[in-house]
């Protein structure tokens, strides 16, 4: 149901029935390794191209999420997913394997929450019984498409972010036990005129703040309502800028814990990832792996995940266009409803 200007409230309690996360070797060396279902030792996943490796990541995560939900793919009505590849081939090709009626979505790195919000809305409105939502990214395929060949010896500036190799999937259902998706806020596209593709955190921070502000306004709540608010992949620089903007707009974020998925998945000291992590897979695996595990353990009761996306293409930045950005927020709660 519409709430306020741009939010949905899910009064019928869509349940997160099953989730799965599959990551690559580099993520397996990070501090959250224990939260992932499958950690691959081979960046290629035994495939012969990066693109096939990415598709395989997604297939594995999707199949495992359905399995963890105690279902077969025949019971899943719809599959909503997206990724960063041109024409979202990873998701579409995985949908070919899964043979579930499919809607491809693109919100760059905000796809993880975009797909979850749409899936929850389908289930909430009784348009579906079970919906699969997913997002994925692969470090090498993204480097190849957006930047340079993976083995090219260029120096990355300290603002650069490292794309996560990972796929996260969840099955949202009408009934059952589990964490519930309670609301979502769909973001506006915000463009502050930044043009540096090696500093996307700074470009995305205003979009994240705008969506958080809209969410708080639409539901007439304060940040303290949540135990934790996380943004998708702002990383160090974007995170600092988000704090600056919260202060400027007088949003009392100090009431709660605010963190960023892009700063959680890697060890800055050991893994040398410049500003932090990025990619569709970043917020997907951190949320579906680490954060939901913390909720299941009872450490967190209500969280707001604000996945952030930079909607640029290799062509648009070569033509000197600025980077339009977006953020979608989804709140996940355990226990009683508001």
């Amino acid at each position, binding site marked *: 149901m519409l709430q306020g200007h741009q939010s949905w409230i899910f009064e019928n309690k869509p349940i997160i029935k099953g989730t799965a996360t599959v990551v690559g070797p580099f993520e397996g060396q990070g501090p959250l390794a224990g939260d992932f279902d499958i950690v691959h030792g081979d960046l290629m996943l035994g495939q012969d191209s990066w693109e096939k490796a990415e598709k395989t990541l997604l297939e594995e995560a999707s199949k495992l999420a359905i399995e963890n939900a105690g279902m077969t793919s025949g019971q899943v009505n719809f599959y909503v997913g997206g990724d960063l590849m041109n024409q979202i081939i990873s998701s579409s090709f995985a949908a070919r394997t899964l043979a579930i009626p499919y809607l491809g979505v693109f919100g760059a790195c905000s796809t993880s929450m975009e797909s979850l919000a749409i899936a929850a809305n389908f289930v909430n409105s009784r348009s579906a019984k079970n919906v699969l939502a997913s997002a994925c990214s692969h470090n090498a395929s993204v480097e190849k498409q957006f930047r*340079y060949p*993976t*083995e*090219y*010896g260029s120096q990355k500036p300290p603002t650069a972010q490292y794309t996560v190799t990972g796929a996260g999937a969840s099955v949202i259902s009408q009934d059952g036990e589990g964490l519930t998706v309670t609301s979502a806020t769909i973001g506006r596209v915000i463009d502050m005129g930044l*043009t540096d593709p090696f500093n996307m955190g*700074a470009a995305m921070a*205003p979009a994240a703040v705008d969506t958080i502000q809209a969410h708080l306004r639409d539901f007439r709540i304060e940040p303290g309502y949540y135990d934790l608010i996380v943004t998708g992949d702002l990383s160090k*620089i974007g995170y600092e*800028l988000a704090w600056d903007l919260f202060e400027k707009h007088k949003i009392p974020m100090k009431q709660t814990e605010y963190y960023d998925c892009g700063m959680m998945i890697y060890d800055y000291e050991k893994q040398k990832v410049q500003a932090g992590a990025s990619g569709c897979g970043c917020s997907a695996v951190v949320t579906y792996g680490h954060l939901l595990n913390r909720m299941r353990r009872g450490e967190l009761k209500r969280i707001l995940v604000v996945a952030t996306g930079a909607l640029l293409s290799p062509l648009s930045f070569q033509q000197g266009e600025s980077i339009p950005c977006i953020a979608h927020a989804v709140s996940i709660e355990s226990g009683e409803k508001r």
Partner: protein
Amino acid sequence: MSNNSKKKLTPVQQEYKHLAKKREPARPVIKNCIRAFLVGGMICLIGQAITDMFVHWGGFDREKAGNPTVAVLIILSVLLTSLGVYDKMGQWAGAGTAVPVTGFANSMASAAIEHRSEGLVLGVGGKMFTLAGPVIVYGTVAAFIVGILHLLFNPSGVGGH
């Protein structure tokens, strides 16, 4: 281009741009220069050693030894690229590994490896020069301009080669 887009920015965008600039960590220019000097110098030193070897044991004269030296450096660079080492060196050394001939070889080898999956013609053949192409094009253009200048100001052709 950047000036053009700056003019079009609204005051709010400009204010944010300033803020973002402030939060951006400065590139460690001095550190980068020192590293580039050391690594670039080291590569040249190795090159010199190879040249001397060719002169000493290979029977080449000083001038002719340059060609096999470059070939050896290129092979080394391609090997290190294939083994996945060169890009890690590049992150540490910056321009030190990018400027010498080894950097040029790396740009071609890395593109060839990366696009192998699109086939030998459209992938390797077509994409090999995506990074190296501009260097060749503008290198040739620059040589052409220098050549004309040389002709204009030194028509007798005395000096230089």
